[in-house]
């Protein structure tokens, strides 16, 4: 599906991002794995991946909190002088709290990581894609960004902003060969859902048609589909991967 494609993945440290680089590598893509910071454990993991998929993975350290770090990451990506076929914006964070309890600082922090920094990074990568007149961008939103969710005013707002940007970018860029889509994962087994109390988790899952939690790999498969040429006539869409709700 993504044979020999060069794809940038943000948030590759854990959860959906980590599952995505694994799925992409298994399908013979070359992956720029953007991580916020390096840990010894992650370096070992990369070494292992590199052994299994030689010359297919390039780690890039990029802290979305820091504009300079974004710039440096782009510089490094550019230095490889290979065309970029896909950008998967997966990095994101949440700090759940009911509306009355959120400080403006917190709101800005979430919005900065989940939206402003992603847009800045996307801007740089679009410039690279425009040179070839080809590319696919997929933004990871959330069902919370579509439906809203208790305790997630800041998170859901940032994910809603991503959806809106996706639609506008599709209008601006699709005629130039760059498709832009968003996906909205439902309840997926990651560190983020680990923090959710079991009672609330079960309540959420009872609303899921498939009656089970989703796995990160299942989200990764959709990301791969949208990055691939299999979806060459799909743009400006928000696709839910939520087991049906």
């Amino acid at each position: 599906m993504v044979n020999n494609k060069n794809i940038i993945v943000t948030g590759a440290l854990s959860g959906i991002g980590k599952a995505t680089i694994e799925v992409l590598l298994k399908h013979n893509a070359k992956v720029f794995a953007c991580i916020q910071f390096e840990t010894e454990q992650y370096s070992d993991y990369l070494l292992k991946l590199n052994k299994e998929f030689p010359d297919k993975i390039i780690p890039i350290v990029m802290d979305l909190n820091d504009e300079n770090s974004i710039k440096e990451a782009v510089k490094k990506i550019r230095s490889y002088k290979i065309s970029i076929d896909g950008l998967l914006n997966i990095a994101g964070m949440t700090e759940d709290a009911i509306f009355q309890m959120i400080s403006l600082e917190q709101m800005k922090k979430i919005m900065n990581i989940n939206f402003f920094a992603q847009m800045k990074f996307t801007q740089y990568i679009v410039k690279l894609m425009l040179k070839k007149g080809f590319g696919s961008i997929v933004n990871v939103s959330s069902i919370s960004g579509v439906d809203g969710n208790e305790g997630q005013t800041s998170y859901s707002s940032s994910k809603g902003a991503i959806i809106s940007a996706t639609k506008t970018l599709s209008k601006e860029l699709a005629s130039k060969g760059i498709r832009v889509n968003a996906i909205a994962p439902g309840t997926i087994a990651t560190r983020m859902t680990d923090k959710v109390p079991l009672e609330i988790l079960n309540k959420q899952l009872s609303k899921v048609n498939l009656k089970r939690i989703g796995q990160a790999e299942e989200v990764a498969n959709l990301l791969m589909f949208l990055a691939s040429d299999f979806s060459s006539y799909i743009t400006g869409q928000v696709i839910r991967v939520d087991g049906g709700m």
Partner: protein
Amino acid sequence: MRMLKNKVSLITGCNRGIGKAILELYAQNGSKIYAHSRKKNEDFVEFLNHLSEKYDVEIIPVFWDLTDYNEMKIFFRKLVKSKEYIDVLVNNAGVTYNSLFLMSSIVELRKQFEVNFFALYQLTQYIVKLMTKAKKGSIINVSSTAAFDGNMGKSAYGPSKAAVHALTQTLSAELGAYNIRVNSVAPGVTDTDMLKSMPENIVLETIEQTDIKRLGKPIDIANTVLFLGSDYSSYISGQVIRVDGGLK
């Protein structure tokens, strides 16, 4: 990579257009196929033989008018008798007549609902009986963006496809517990025979309204139908995926 290895699929209306593209892609991806078409046709059978040889898959042609419920029942009984199982049902067959609301006859309206909705409903009911037993399955309904956008001359076709969409969501809710996923694909303006029923200026205007500025090709739709039929979409259900080049 064969995405449908060891799967058995039933595709309706696959003698031309989008259905034909789905048929070929499914064969290429290793699925055993029951290939449905309304009328028996030697060229079609020959094409199936060619696909079967080329991709080394079994393809069984089945012919009946979708609205002939008796023939449908006979087909289903044969399936049951042969202990066949269907992993993927692609409800693709459909008809359209374009006419302005005031010029549309109730007869034409009913005809479109008969094929696009009632026949689909009945066939799905039969196949779901097999799927619930096996506790797995994927159903893909080929709908249309006309179901959502409201297009001139589509006062019958649009509602028939909207009904399919509502059915998709209800079935997803009812059948999810049996591990059966139900989704629909909504093609935008796609380069098929159906397009010929639309005036050229409207087609050009619609292309202008897409982000991507071109017509869809049958293979574009088929690729999404393949993804939804495969296990790659194992957590996607109750969705309508627009394959429309970003149509507004």
